[in-house]
């Protein structure tokens, strides 16, 4: 079966099976910035934006993307580079595997909650795991980014 959705500002059509999840659809169509981590709704590395909201592509059936706007880091390069600068400044990067999902979640946070409290920031990113750097440096980077973006 076919689904149509807008991927990174381009209308695209994909051939899928009914039990296929968006992560698989994207990766087999060479959108490899979307990472495959736990594949069971926990780690957050497969995060994409659907109509601006972060969703786990490993847990969203591709049929449910039909007619929606899907954004990966490839469609938000300037924003993501900007976020990366703050991560670099705080030494919050190591292997980088979690970065794409994390960056999209942070971007969505900025748009959804104006002036978030520390607890709101932590609650928002709790589903994006990082196994390298710990979370303190990332938290500081996110705070600095949100402060500048006010």
């Amino acid at each position, binding site marked *: *079966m076919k689904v149509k959705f807008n991927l990174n500002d381009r209308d695209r059509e994909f051939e899928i*099976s*009914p*039990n296929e*999840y968006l992560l698989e659809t994207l990766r087999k169509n060479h959108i490899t910035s979307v990472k495959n981590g736990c594949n*069971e*709704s*926990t780690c*957050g590395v497969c*995060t994409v934006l*659907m109509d601006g*909201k*972060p*969703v*786990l592509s490993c*847990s*969203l*059936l591709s*049929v*449910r993307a039909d007619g929606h706007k899907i954004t990966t880091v490839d469609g938000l390069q300037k924003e993501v580079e900007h976020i990366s600068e703050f991560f670099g400044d705080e030494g919050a990067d190591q292997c980088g595997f979690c970065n794409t*999902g994390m960056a999209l*979640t942070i971007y*969505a946070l900025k748009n959804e909650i104006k002036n978030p409290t520390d607890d709101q920031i932590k*609650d*928002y*990113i*709790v*589903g*994006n*795991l990082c196994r390298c750097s710990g979370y303190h440096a990332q938290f500081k980077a996110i705070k600095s980014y949100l402060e500048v973006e006010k």
Partner: protein
Amino acid sequence: MEINQYVKAKSIEEAYQVLIENPKNSILGGGAWLKQSSPNVNTLIDIVDCGLDQITETKTHIEIGALVTLHELESDPAIKSLGGGFVSESLSHVLGIGFRNIATIGGTIAGKYAFSDIITALLTLDVKLIFHPKREINLEAFLNAKGKVTDILTHVVIRKSSGKGFFKKVAASTLEFAVLDVAVYQEDNKFQISIGSRPSGAMLSHEASAFLNNQNKMTEEVLNQAAQIVLDTVKLGSNKNASKEYREALTKAYVKRGIKEVSSK
């Protein structure tokens, strides 16, 4: 998980007609748990175009469409203010936001998931489920009913109330399923106590409610007696996450804490 075919229904009635064609046909909620939990599906019926994604607030009730996501629900002002925010609190610990933007309230309730935090909280409130075709049932009766759900959950209706709620999820780490969920609600000195992730599904202790409803003052002795009644009437067990004894200790501590919290001015 295998899905032979997918149908996007234009109306709930159309979805229902497809559903009853074959016992292996199934309604799609959020789909987030599908690959972990579902057996093979003949026809997966999507009700995404049936207008079930709205939260409507009236003077007396909050009516939630079955396809409202858990994050939409936790962020809704009416839900946030209910019982002092304990329902929102129960939703905010369900994995990460990327998951809560997919999982739906209808899928969660229809799935009767034993580990569900939100079901534990909702049980303490007056909650009615609306099914298509015409059926209304309260949440507790639905959870206790045996057998496969053969109709379609369309709305969850919560009666508004001005009481105070308490919710506690105990888990080994933030993203893990609860070892135990405890919810307590009090309105006009009428109490409800619900225990979830026992590890079986959530249930109320009506006996503890009856006991508390007859007390004038919440002394330490009353709290201890209420907690003991909960332990006597709600069956706890062991699984790989926690032993029965550990759950009993948690239940005692958090039931007492919950009663204290909802009783305070």
